[in-house]
């Protein structure tokens, strides 16, 4: 027990799992028996959840949002990788700098612009998401590239590798695992944006729209239920990304402190 409160301790797996389970139980019990004023009761939320699933198509809506999110993430990752790798060439450095600063643009203003440029709502939605995600990813990815040390580059050069080959070996291959980590961390941003964009382009539905409706009709239990679903999806995604990392980059866990 004592080790749960000592810094950097490594409790046994069973102990730790039991602790987490107990904490969750406690939270649920508190919620079930001492309903707070602002939060609907556990029972109400569960009822709303089943109602949403059966009659409002929560699952397909979630799926629709998820595919849109993944689609934008895939394109944005490709774009961001390209932009960040191109910073090796001085000519392209201003682009990465500019892209990274575009984080400060507001989504609403951006949507307005895209709406003028593009015809279909779906395109606007995707473009906005891709754009916004790309700028965040570029920021994270360029900072990963900047962690490259003289020592690492010299090492590749002393093996007789050309500048390009050294870059490929040290920066591209050597830091792919860190890039995946950047993507994982920024995936959450897509979810915040997607709910917003979906309310602006309502024709295609999505979990954001569902959430918006629940909000409008003041179905607090429904709102909490959807938020929980999004939270669970996010947790699952994080887990899957962790899994991907372990499978494809078995070496990357080795260096981090545990």
């Amino acid at each position, binding site marked *: 027990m004592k080790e749960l409160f000592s810094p950097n301790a490594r409790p046994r797996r069973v102990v730790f799992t039991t602790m987490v389970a107990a904490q969750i139980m406690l939270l649920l019990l508190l919620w079930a028996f001492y309903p707070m004023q602002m939060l609907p009761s556990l029972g109400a939320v569960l009822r709303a959840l089943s109602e949403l699933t059966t009659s409002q198509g929560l699952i397909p809506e979630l799926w629709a949002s998820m595919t849109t999110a993944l689609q934008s993430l895939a394109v944005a990752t490709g774009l961001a990788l390209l932009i960040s790798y191109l910073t090796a060439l001085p000519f392209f450095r201003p682009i990465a700098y500019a892209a990274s600063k575009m984080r400060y643009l507001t989504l609403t203003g951006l949507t307005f612009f895209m709406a003028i440029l593009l015809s279909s709502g779906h395109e606007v939605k995707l473009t906005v998401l891709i754009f916004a995600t790309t700028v965040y990813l570029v920021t994270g990815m360029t900072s990963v590239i900047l962690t490259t040390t003289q*020592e*690492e580059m*010299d*090492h*590749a*050069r*002393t*093996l*007789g*590798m050309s500048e390009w080959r050294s870059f490929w*070996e*040290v920066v591209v*291959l*050597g830091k*792919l*695992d860190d890039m995946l980590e950047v993507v994982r961390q920024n995936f959450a941003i897509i979810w915040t944006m997607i709910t917003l964009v979906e309310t602006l382009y309502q024709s295609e539905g999505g979990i954001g729209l569902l959430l918006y409706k629940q909000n409008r009709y003041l179905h607090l239990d429904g709102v909490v239920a959807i938020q929980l679903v999004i939270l669970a999806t996010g947790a699952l995604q994080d887990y899957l990304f962790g899994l991907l990392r372990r499978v494809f*980059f*078995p*070496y990357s866990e*080795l*260096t981090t402190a545990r």
Partner: protein
Amino acid sequence: MTPYFYKAPVLTLEGISMTFEGEVILRDINAQVLDVCRPDMNQGQVVGFYGRSGMGKSVLCRILAGLMAPTTGRVLVGEQQEPVTPGAVGFVQQRYPLFNHRTLHDNLLVAASRKYAPEEAQQQTETYLERFQLTAHRKKYPAHLSGGQRQRAAIAQQLLCSDHLILLDEPFSGLDVAMIGEVKKIILEVTTMDELNTVVIVSHDIATTTALCDRLWLLGYERDTNGQLIPGATITADHQYNLAEMGLAWHENVEAEPEFARFVEHIKDEIRM
């Protein structure tokens, strides 16, 4: 006294100086390593390279490895005495960097593939794994290797793709006595592997390094006629020692000889100056 004679130069430093933003770090360095020959054996060269911290040893190493162009002068390497290019000289940096995303085997293979055709590269990799006692760890990633294993791997990697010349930056720092013995064995092995093999050791462990060397370079400052220090470190002619000539090279247990102890003390005094 061991019979020996010299053949062609294998490494030449010609008027090297280095200035960073007006600050002179290195000044007019001229030095040469000749291929030393001993009858009936492959005898490579070992050069010890000393100097106080901050004098510019790392800068000179990077210049020797072709990673940095000097402000003036040039470095010539090999039998052909060609100007150095990156990759021509193996350079084992202080913290023994390896590719962390590749297994030990792949680290060596990627180096071997720089020089050999695929099949030959595979074969050379196996040979080096065996020779450096790394075969058991071939599937491990660098993060899982001990310091000594990393160092051996880094040396093997550089040997696999460079031609005869290899620079070791602080190979003895942070090692225990047994490990130092291991590294010494590896250096001896490298220098007896091929007649032309030349190892330059940058170290603060003067006794250990001197015991391995047949030539010593001391980086230091010169004083002008008024006794003022001249900016920029250099290797003056009397700071280039030929240990073979002094009868201190290639002795089995040279560290026990009084002559050797006196010489090491002399070197230490020179460094303190």
